[in-house]
């Protein structure tokens, strides 16, 4: 008993001494630096004992609440794992992007009203990101989204800047173009489809994805013979399905949401041309347990960001489960976790500690360093940012709802095809 305690005490003192030495070493380095001069965008000054303030700008209400809530949890877990950053606590201010331009604006204004705000992880939706990035850019505040996928926010991946790219904007989510390629490659090469139909629902996300699919599929040599749309709130999809069935495509890609997709699968089995569910493909918006239990979704395909594998992710999921009492509810929690960690690492690298313990975080330096991120090891892969802020290590899975009674985890695990763009 005694010995064990003394071992403990000794090791504790050793650890403390080592930490003290490390800190002292740091102090020496700091002392060597010149007086801190803020750059062109200014700097955030964090007094000793004050927290480092980070914003989360996510869709946390309405129909898309689960998308944003999932990511807020990812950020919260990243903060909990980090503990303290440079001796300061990390405080999170959560704002709602309402998955719309209006919410993007209001939430961003709320965030920029805090002069101590260092950076923002968000938004959830691309439509909210457009105005939010502009407002945050005016203040020189870095913004890392973990679920925006619109190419307009970064680039077309071939060197052309997107129309809404801002120089403060980065993301850890994949670009739509990548998912479009993945779905198209799978359809064309794995399934041997020559013709396809796309259906979107007027949502910018689904329409963008349908367009990206069409571009890639055409490039591969296939033909999209029907590109059509339904409206949110529609229940009777038969007229649209008649249009699709009349063209008799080899496959139908409908990256839309519930409940409209429920009606599509339920009613498509009335059409001999579409009866075969092997022809149907959805996207990540439909990978939910309420959708895959529908009898007509058996054998359907889904494209979506690959579920990370590996022990670290399993640990993360366990923590998520312990903390929130349920398994991750959407696809982008790990991207959010990575975005937050990437941000913390960068703050760690660029922050300057003054003699009195005040932390200076230069906004320009933070942005430069974020854009220079290379080989960051996250849950979703190895992240490297390009010049337009696309940082993801994109990996898209195509999964199949293979057997009756499959759970959502089973479906996610039933990977038929994985796509990673060539470097």
């Amino acid at each position, binding site marked *: 008993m005694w010995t064990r305690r003394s071992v403990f005490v000794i090791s504790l003192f050793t650890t403390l001494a080592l930490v003290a030495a490390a800190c002292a070493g740091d102090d020496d380095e700091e002392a060597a630096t010149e007086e801190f001069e803020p750059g062109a965008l200014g700097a955030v000054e964090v007094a000793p004992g004050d927290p480092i303030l980070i914003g989360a700008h996510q869709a946390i*209400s309405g129909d898309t609440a689960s998308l944003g809530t999932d990511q807020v949890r990812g950020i919260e877990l990243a903060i909990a794992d980090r503990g303290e950053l440079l001796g300061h606590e990390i405080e999170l201010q959560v704002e*709602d992007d309402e998955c*719309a*331009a*209006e919410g993007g*604006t*209001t939430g961003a*204004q*709320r965030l*920029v*009203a805090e002069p101590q705000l260092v950076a923002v992880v968000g938004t959830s939706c691309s*439509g909210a990101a*457009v*105005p939010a990035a*502009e*407002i945050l850019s*005016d203040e020189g505040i870095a913004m890392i989204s973990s679920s925006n996928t*619109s190419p*307009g926010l970064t680039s077309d991946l071939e060197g052309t800047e997107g*129309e*809404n790219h801002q120089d403060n904007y980065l993301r850890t989510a994949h670009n739509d173009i990548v998912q479009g390629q993945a779905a198209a490659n799978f359809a064309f090469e794995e399934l041997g489809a020559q013709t396809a139909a796309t259906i*979107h629902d*007027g*949502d*910018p996300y*689904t*329409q*963008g994805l349908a367009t990206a699919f069409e571009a890639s599929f055409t490039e591969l040599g296939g033909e999209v013979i029907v*590109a*059509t*749309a339904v*409206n949110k709130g529609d229940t009777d999809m038969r007229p649209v399905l008649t249009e699709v069935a009349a063209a008799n495509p080899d496959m139908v890609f409908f990256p839309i949401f519930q409940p409209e997709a429920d009606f599509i699968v339920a009613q498509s089995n009335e059409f001999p041309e579409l009866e075969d569910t092997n022809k149907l493909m959805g996207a990540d918006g439909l990978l939910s347990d309420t959708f895959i239990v529908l009898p007509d979704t058996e054998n359907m395909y889904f494209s979506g960001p690959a579920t990370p594998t590996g022990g670290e992710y399993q640990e993360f999921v366990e923590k998520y489960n312990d903390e929130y009492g349920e398994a991750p509810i959407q696809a982008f929690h790990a991207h959010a976790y990575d975005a937050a960690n990437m941000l913390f690492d960068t703050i760690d690298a660029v922050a300057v500690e003054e003699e009195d313990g005040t932390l200076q975080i230069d906004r320009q330096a933070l942005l430069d360093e974020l854009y220079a991120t290379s080989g960051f090891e996250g849950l979703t892969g190895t992240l490297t940012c390009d010049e337009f802020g696309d940082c993801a290590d994109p990996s898209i899975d195509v999964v199949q709802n293979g057997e009756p009674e499959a759970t959502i985890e089973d479906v996610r695990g039933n990977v038929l095809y994985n796509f990673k763009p060539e470097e």
Partner: protein
Amino acid sequence: MTTIPAAVAPVPVTDAGGLLPARQVDLRRGVRLGLIGGTTAVFVSAIGMVEDFSGREVLDELSLGTALLLAIPLVFGYMAGRPPAQLEGFAPTRPGWRSPVAGLMAGLLTGAVVAAFVALIINVNLREYFINITPALAEDEDGPRLLLYGRSLGPGLGLMLGLNAALAAAGAALHLLATRLRRAILAGVAWVTAFALLQPFVQQVLRGIRDELQIETGPLSRFLYRGDSLRIAAAVAVALAAVGLYLWTRRPGRIPLRTQVGRLPDRPRRLALGAGLLVALLVVGILPSVLGSFLSEVLGVAGIFVLMALGLNIVVGYAGLLDLGYVAFFAVGAYITAILTSPTGGLEAGWTFWAAVPFVLLAAAAAGLLVGTPVLRMRGDYLAIVTLGFGEIARILFLSDWLAPTFGGAQGIKRIPDIVIGPFEIRGPQAFLYPLLVLILLAAYVSYALQNSRIGRAWMAMREDESVAEAVGVNIVAAKLSAFIVGAILAGLGGALFATKIGSIFPNSFDIIVSITVLVVVIAGGMASVPGVILGAVVLVGLPELLREFEDYRFLIYGTLLIFMMLRRPEGFIPSRRRAQELHEADIEQDAWVRARAEGGADGAVGSTASGG
């Protein structure tokens, strides 16, 4: 209190020496209100409001959820204790024991209903269907047990019943006080509520004053609030100040400021008015910086709704044409601005805002004409559904793949530039308030000018009775079309401002819900009343942004408010005098009689507003 003539009880025929005996506080009404109050408390608990609100402390350690539960018996007790309005031929009601007793009964019944609910949810698991009846309400041993105020079952139920009864009786007992004192106390309660709920607003304004005017407001801020919640001492201070202010401004024999200024000789009066204007300008000048970017943003959003509501007020309030698709004009304004100014929109025009404005006006007027012409011969109900249809048609066309090459379809139009006035670029929410204010003043001026013009009188005649108006020579066609066009132009300008403010527009911003919201603003604010409409927009659109706890319940509250306003106060928060007269002719006659008896102090919103001014 009865406001609707149809519901006035039949007058007894017995005569008692000139006047009938005074009508008494009806104890059965106390019972009924108690049951309704209890149902209300159960309802707000079952939809999750109480639990959602329990996270925010408003007064010391009192959470908003608990405050809501406590407010219910208070309000229903007050209603139960209210003596009936004086009617022609009856002696005035004297305050007496019946008021607090009615309140007590209401409170006990409210408590009893809640107790029954607690018993139910403890014994039966309803969660499978009623997802918001969570253990936090009463079951969870370690939880907050919100309905029991954190106590265990027995003491909690006792406390709950006692509090309900006491608060309801107290609310009812207010009627024993003199009218002036009672109203002063109500004003105090209102002010404390406002300070507690609007904490972010008050603190931001104090911070803004400190930063911009170099007046140290920190101590005041710390005196008022601890964290998010109002301190008890501060609440008492605010209440006393409000009561004092009320009594002082309404002291007997005081002459209203306006009358005082009016009585001044010419020169000093002009000076006084000039000084007033100067102060107003100064306030407007520093207001945006005091408010800071976020409150300015909220005000900007509310301001756009003010603009739209002023426009819809002309269509619905003045001309009586129920337009449920008003958002169509807003969308036209926004989209025309967007395609003409955005360098990447369908036309890649890249014009300045000012170059686009004439086209916005033209397009909006054309849209007004387009909607107005086919509906010329349709009556109110047909009009509603057809205009609703036009609203949907506009949204779907802007969304459609068909017109996407021009209007961007689902991806909307982005990169809409800011307004540039001479050397100034209107960037950010604070600067945006100025062009917005100018347009609102313009719209308000137009509204007033039209109200008293020939066409304004034609609209109102048409609103009363179309056939009669036509028979007396009103040109119905011109009146209807001009109402649609003026309304469309104001909404179009609102849309143009919205587009530049937000910088990117998407079709889902032009949902039917916008039309309904604007309608609610007009109705609740006061149809045909310009100040009412402005207040309505600020309260109904601005406040929910500040009170984020209410955000999830916004449409529930809108719905309730619409029903309540129509039943109790169809003329709105700040009624137009003429409109109130139309709706309450019978009450006005009543009032005239009561006033003629020189009794004064006829209680109740309708009586006082209809006769006020």
